Structures are given as structure tokens and as C-alpha cells.
């Protein structure tokens, strides 16, 4: 469960989040929609612990525990996952190496033994098959020369492998064609579980056709200005954000 309570945050002295409050329960899929510049990506960075953002007020609780004092890697080990809008390239580090390093870094932090190479390979192969990720891609340096769709698929593959207790998807649908969108949607849906929550950040309804949310929230000027059910997304698709942007101003 993720609880964001009256969160204020800024970067380089510029206020981006202005008292944002949102709770996503276990088993819930919440969608955040909103116009450009409303601070949606900032919200994901602040929750994940990017150090150049400064939190000036409020709190963030993961499974009942405040995580604001933890480093990004510690939050990850506690089960928080962020699928990036623009996944980064790491030249010279094969995807396989990176996946193994991530899994074992988290296990080490949790005091669990490292995964043996055969166990790891079995796990990766199974997940890769599900996500339509070819072996050849796992041997290439991480994200280097990957198409937009390949990068996003790999983000979801990582999510499947790391089995987070809470996942944030930041515009995972951008740059995806219809087939890739379905694969990504299936990947997320396969992870939906009673003890796992999702926060899906998107501009468009079309991702929500594949990942049907329980709740939909509109973010504008660093706050949640409207919450509702899946029908809210359809309404936004039809009428745009105009009314809500005006209300927030």
C-alpha cells in the first residue's frame, strides 16, 4: 500500500508538488492522468527517491512505513518499482548482467542469499518468454540501440523479475504500438495480486483499455484535483483537462 500525504516537493527552488494526497491500497490499480507539466513524473521521481528533488513537506508511506529518509536503492529493496518513461542506456553492461546485479543487490539488502546462476537463468528465461523478449536482447548492452517498444517491454520484464510490492508506471504506453501495448498490458495484468498495488501514470485512455484501473485521479499543478472510477478516464478522453486545470488555478 502506498500513502502519499500532503506531499510538497521542489527542484532547484521551483515548487512542483503542492500538497498532493493519494492512497493506493493493496490490490488496487490507480491511474493518474493530467496535462503536461502537472508534476506527474515528478511525483514518480520523488516517491522513488531521486535525490535532486527536495521534499519540503508531507510524507510517503510504503506498507505503513515512511520511506522519505531512505535512499532510492533502499526503497527498491523494500519493494518499490518505477518503470521509467525514458529508460536509461548503460553501455557495455549486458541486460543479463544488469538484471542479475539488480536482483542480487535487492536480495543482499534484505539479507537473502544471492540467486544462483541456474536459478536466475531459469527465472529470466520464463519472464522473457512471457514478455516476448528474445535471448539476443538479453545479451546486448542494456537499452543500447533498443527501440522504444523494446525498452518499455524490458522495463516490464524487470518488474516481473523483481516482484515489487508496489509499482509505478510512468507513461509506459508512450512510444508503443498496439501489439507492444498489449504485451505490456498483459505483463502488468499477470502481476496484479491482492498484495500488490499499481500507480499508472498516463496521458491516454488507450493504456487503460488494457490495464483496467480501479480508480482514476486527475493531477493538476502538483495536486490531485479529482478522483473517480474508470469512467472518469473516458470523460477526460472526451472533454479534456480544461475544467480541472481551471479548478486548480
Amino acid at each position, binding site marked *: 500500500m502506498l500513502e502519499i500525504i500532503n506531499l510538497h516537493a521542489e527542484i532547484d527552488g521551483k515548487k512542483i508538488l503542492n500538497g498532493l494526497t493519494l492512497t493506493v491500497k493493496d490490490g488496487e490499480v490507480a491511474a493518474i492522468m493530467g496535462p503536461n507539466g502537472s508534476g506527474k513524473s515528478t511525483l514518480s521521481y520523488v516517491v522513488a*527517491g531521486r*535525490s535532486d528533488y527536495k521534499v519540503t513537506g508531507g510524507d510517503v508511506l510504503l506498507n505503513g512505513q515512511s520511506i522519505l529518509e531512505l*535512499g532510492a*536503492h533502499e526503497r527498491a529493496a523494500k519493494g518499490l518499482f518505477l518503470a*521509467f518513461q525514458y529508460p*536509461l542506456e548503460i553501455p557495455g*553492461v549486458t541486460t543479463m548482467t544488469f538484471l542479475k546485479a539488480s536482483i542480487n543487490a535487492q536480495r543482499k539488502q534484505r539479507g537473502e542469499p544471492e540467486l544462483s546462476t541456474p536459478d536466475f537463468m531459469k527465472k529470466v528465461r520464463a519472464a522473457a518468454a512471457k514478455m516476448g523478449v528474445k535471448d539476443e536482447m538479453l545479451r546486448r548492452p542494456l537499452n543500447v540501440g533498443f527501440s522504444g517498444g523494446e525498452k518499455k517491454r524490458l522495463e516490464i520484464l524487470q518488474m516481473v523479475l523483481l516482484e515489487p510490492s508496489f509499482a509505478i508506471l510512468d507513461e509506459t504506453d508512450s512510444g508503443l504500438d498496439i501489439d507492444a501495448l498489449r504485451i505490456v498490458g498483459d505483463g502488468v495484468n499477470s502481476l496484479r495480486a491482492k498484495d500488490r498495488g499499481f500507480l499508472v501514470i498516463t496521458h491516454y485512455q488507450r493504456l487503460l483499455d488494457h490495464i483496467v484501473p480501479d480508480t482514476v485521479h486527475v493531477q493538476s499543478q502538483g495536486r490531485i484535483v479529482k478522483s473517480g472510477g474508470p469512467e472518469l478516464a473516458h470523460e477526460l478522453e472526451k472533454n479534456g483537462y480544461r475544467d480541472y486545470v481551471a479548478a486548480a488555478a
Partner: protein
Amino acid sequence: MAAVQETVDKVKSIDVDAYKYGFVTDIESDKAEKGLNEDTVRFISAKKGEPEWLTEWRLDAYRRWLTMREPTWARVDYPKIDYQDLYYYSAPKSMSGPMSLDEVDPELLRTYEKLGIPLREREILAGVQGASTRVAVDAVFDSVSVATTFKAELAKAGVIFCPISEAVQSHPELVRKYMGTVVPVTDNYFATLNSAVYSDGSFVYIPPGVRCPMELSTYFRINEQNTGQFERTLIIADKGSYVSYLEGCTAPKRDENQLHAAVVELIALDDAEIKYSTVQNWYPGDSEGKGGIYNFVTKRGDCRGARSKISWTQVETGSAITWKYPSCILRGDESRGEFYSIAISNGRQQVDSGTKMLHLGRNTSSRIISKGISAGRSNNTYRGQVFAHRKATGARNFTNCDSLLIGNKCGAHTIPYIESRNANAIFEHEATTSKISDDQLFYCMQRGLSAEEATALIVNGFVRDVLQQLPMEFAVEAQKLISVSLEGSVG
């Protein structure tokens, strides 16, 4: 946020050089008097029981050195060295010449054990379990070689691997024929100084058609205070032979700077191949730049025969100052030279390193892959020369120099000199400079890696092409070394 800052602070508080080889061995030593004059040169020569011609050779070098000036063109900055304030010869007292392993002072054996260098035969280099390769080691402690392993077994294959002081006695014709033919006595200030006062080093001769049955290795250790180490290595690969040679080095942590001015000469005859790998881990000084080794080394290989090949691979993490350009003279037709380098600088280290590929023969080829990593307040310069003689028709070179910056207080510089006197030569040069971005770090951290682990992973990716060139035993060692060298670089 706060926690990240805390991590960063903690990391910063770790000694920049978590240098684990900084201990001193307490052993009595036999030293020449401080300072340098003709008597010092004669003293060293007499200690080694050298023949007349070699004493004269040294004295010639010494007289020549007096007329030379210390080079100042490198992008390094250090206080003037007082050459009269150094010891030029220091040997553990218990050593009265090369001896069998059973006779070596146990204190010395313990020292090498602590360094992870096996002086007992049948052992393997530390860090790799289950590796089946064996490595023959020549251990040089201050000015003398203390032990050479596997000599008998190598002799069966006809391979000579021994301290150079011993080779002067046992194979004077080989030493006399080849020594100083690649790096002439007059070559440069530090090489000339070395010629005058060199005390020991390794000698390797591989007979025609022999593939050396195991990796050969020399391990250099400077222990004594105020002592310069001047070793000389000479490797000859006769026609159609092959040898892979590894060099490692460490020194205790001391507040004073120590001078290391070595000369390495490689000679490859027709169809021979020499692979020379270095993992240089001299004490780099503390985070304020106090202490550390001045590493002023002349390394050169001569592809004297047709179709011969010399390959230099180096991982440079130590030394306060590095001044080093392992080079290849591509004299034989169709000969090939390679240079693969990883140079890491942190704290206040200064590195000016690179290579020279001198294409003299026809259809000669060379390849240079250099990866420089600068962190802390260090400066890292790649300086390289590629030259084609007018007769070097068909010469080819490919150069790739990549620099990676960590933090915003360090510097990376690339200075290539490219000169072709043959219209037919093809030289290619690529260079990039990049910085580990906050985005990359955050991405890795979001997946569970700490800032340190993330940096090490990104750096290992950056140097991958070069690490793959190292013999397996050293690659594992080098990878660990890279992580240690970069401790405290994040923040």
C-alpha cells in the same frame, strides 16, 4: 534525499585509497649509501658480480644521464626530485643471491602471501577458484628478485625465466645481444637513469617454435623508505614462439613519494607473439595527494621479425603520478602491435599515459583501445603517437580513446599525435568523452544498486572491451581493483 546524502557522506569519509596493500614488511636490509655517483653505480654492479662490459655500460649511462634534463612536457605536476636524497639499492639482508624456495626468508614469503601472490609452486593467483592455469612468478622485493617459481618445469620446455641479474651470469650472450636494443641507453632521462642503476628484474627467453607452457609473471614490491626501484625486464620471443607475461606491483603507504623508474624491453622475432599485461596498483597517495609512487616507466616492444605480434594490456589504478607509454616498433613486415589500456585516477592522482605505434615495415597494423576514467580531483591524459615511415606501405591503425568523468572536479585530456609519411597508410582515430549521469545512477539505484555499486557497474561496462583482453586470472583481479579504486568517487 537525506538518506542519499548520508550515504554520500559516508562514502566520502572512506579513505579515498582504501589501499589494502599499504603495510610495511619489517625486514633488515642491505643498502647502498644514499645518493648517486659513479661509486653507487660500481657498488650495484659489484653487488651483482657483473662482468666488466656491464659495469662500463652502466657507467656510460650514468655519465650520459648527468648531461640530460628531466622531461617537462607531460601534463603532470610534482615537486623537483632530489636524486641525491634516494637510496639506489636495497636488498633484504637475508638474501645473498637467488636461492631455492625453501631458503627464502619466511617473512618475505608471508609478505607475498598477504599480497595474494603465490610463491609456492602449484598455487594459483588469489581470487580465482577452480582456475586450472598455473602461473610462474618472479618476485622482486625492492632491488632484488627473491624467488622464481616453476623454473625447472619451464627449463624442460627450453624457456629461460629468471632474475635478470642471474641471466647476466648464466646467459651473458643473450643479455648482451638484446639489452638496450629496444630502449637505447640514451633513450630518455628515466630510462638512462635506469640503465645506470637498475638492480634487478626479470629475464625471459622463449626458444624458436615454443609456446610457453604457462603464464609468466613478475610481482614488484617496493618496501624500503626513500628507495627508488629501478627494475629492468627483458623478454625475447624467438621465431615462432609465444609467451603471455603478467606484471603486478604494490607498495606500502608512506608519506614521502617513492620513485619507480623501470625499463621493459620486448623483442619478437619472425612469427613470434608476446602478450604483456600489467595490473599496476602502486600506492596512489592519500586523498590530499600526500605520498604515493612516481611511476616513470619506459616500456617498448620491438616487432623485429616478420608477422610478429606484441600486445600490451594495462590496468592502471595506482601511483601518484604515472608517466608511461608502452609502445611498439613495427619493424617486421606484416607485424602487429596492440595497446589496450584502462587508466583510472581518483583523489589527486595524475596520469599521463598512452602508447606509440611506429609503423616501419610494410602492411603493419596496430590497434589502440584506451579507456580513461577520472574521478575525485584527478587528471587523466591520453597521449599517443601513431607514425608511418615512408616505406610503411599498407600500414593501418585504428585508435579509440574514450574518457569517462565521475564528478565535476576531475579532468580528462586526449592528445593524439598522428603522422604519416606514406600516402598509402590508413589511420583511424575515434575519441569520446562522457560523464556518468545522475539519470543513469538513479536508474540503477531504483533497481536496488547502491550509488557505489551502480558506479562500479557503469565503469565495468565502460572498460569491458579492455578487460576482455586480460588473462582470466587478472581480469577478475582487475575488476575488483576498479571497484576499490573508485571508492569515494561518488558524491
